[in-house]
């Protein structure tokens, strides 16, 4: 699969997942109802003098953002609509992060969408390519590859940063002590409301009785998180590391109760890598 086709596929999957798992519901427009007294600006939002005024326009902006997903997924006017979609998303998510609480799962999605918006991702599998046909300029192959690299870089940086923070803040005692064991059992304190399959299974409570196993899992967590950048080195590394990270996320969901569904747009960035790896593997097997 050529890089341009990979980018076209990533565009469809990334924006579809972002819409389905992040933008679809009322969550972002509801920040218009949060009292201004809670305003605690983050990043560029410090420049806003009157957050109440922004709140009055927020539902309209969110509606525009949601509608623009249709255009970027179909690849209609991509060159113009994608930057607007991503900048609107950047503003909306940044605004919702400016009331004193952080939702870390949304940060890498916003960051990864920036290189995608300013790339020729609309050149394949798009309405633009059907309408304009031969009138579209051939995109620079290196720029296409670098776009995919940047999105994968964001993915790796997230896990590597989480591992590095454990080393910098906790040191090796994060592994050799009872930290993971206590985080596991304290999970219901952080998520007291509503149904969660993890609460039903109560594996976090069962694991508490296995302190050595918890330390082994803590060590594996640290190794895996710090190994994430290896996924950028080659397809073989990517397949192993990304599969392990996916299993790791599912385990976190079932034990520490942290939902990772909003991360799915980042995982789809690796689908072309898996596809080409297994295609080659099948060819090699058929030949031998």
């Amino acid at each position, binding site marked *: 699969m050529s890089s341009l086709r990979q980018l076209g596929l990533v565009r469809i999957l990334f924006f579809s997942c972002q819409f389905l798992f992040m933008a679809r519901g009322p969550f972002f427009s509801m920040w218009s109802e949060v*009292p201004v007294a809670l305003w605690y600006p*983050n*990043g560029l939002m410090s420049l806003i003098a009157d957050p109440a005024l922004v709140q009055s326009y927020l539902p309209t902006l969110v509606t525009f953002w949601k509608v623009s997903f249709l255009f970027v997924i179909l690849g209609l006017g991509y060159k113009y609509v994608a930057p607007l979609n991503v900048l609107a998303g950047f503003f909306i998510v940044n605004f919702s992060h400016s009331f*004193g609480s952080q939702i870390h799962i949304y940060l890498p999605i916003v960051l990864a969408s920036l290189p995608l918006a300013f790339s020729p991702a609309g050149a394949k599998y798009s309405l633009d390519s059907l309408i304009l046909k031969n009138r579209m300029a051939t995109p*620079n192959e290196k720029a296409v590859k670098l776009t995919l690299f940047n999105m994968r870089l964001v993915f790796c940086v997230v896990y590597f940063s989480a591992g590095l*923070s454990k080393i910098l*803040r906790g040191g090796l005692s*994060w592994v050799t002590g009872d930290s993971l064991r206590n985080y596991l059992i304290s999970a219901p304190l952080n998520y*007291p409301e509503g149904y969660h399959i993890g609460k039903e299974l109560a594996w976090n409570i069962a694991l*508490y009785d296995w302190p050595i196993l918890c330390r082994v899992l803590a060590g594996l967590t640290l190794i895996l998180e710090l190994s994430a950048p290896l996924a950028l080195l080659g397809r073989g590394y990517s397949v192993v590391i990304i599969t392990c990270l996916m299993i790791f996320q599912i385990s976190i969901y079932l034990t520490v109760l942290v939902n990772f569904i909003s991360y799915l747009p980042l995982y789809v960035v690796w689908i072309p890598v898996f596809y080409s790896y297994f295609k080659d593997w099948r060819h090699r097997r058929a030949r031998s």
Partner: protein
Amino acid sequence: MFFQKIFTVIIILGTVVAHFRNEDFFPFSNYPMYSRVFETDQKTHGYDIKGVNYDGTERSIFVFRYLYPLWSYALQTSLLAEEDDQKINLKLNAVLKMHNDRLPLGDPRILAGMRIYEVKLDWPTIVDNLRRTKKFEGYLGTDRKILYEAVR
């Protein structure tokens, strides 16, 4: 190509700066969740936010239902983001108003007040309780004192 090179630099530099500053600045973070050492025998403290009924009794607030898009943890971090007592009281009053404004007049769920407690957690007691009941039943058997209070 130029834009993509710039993005590569931004992604790496932004992350380095987030680690260096040890705090988030949108959309960069050092992803510090669960990175603190959490030992078994340590006595730790936390915060509990309660609603006050008109008869003076207290009840838990179903944050996700009545204060959406906030949820329990977000409400706590939003209220306590700054250390200024006056600002925290102002925020608590605003949240109480938001809660009551979302309910119809005369609704029995309308609150007379809201309180933020500081709770000193006796970790072994909480762990025993969780292991026995397999669910969180509130901060049972802990020392608690009112830090902030809002009255309608």
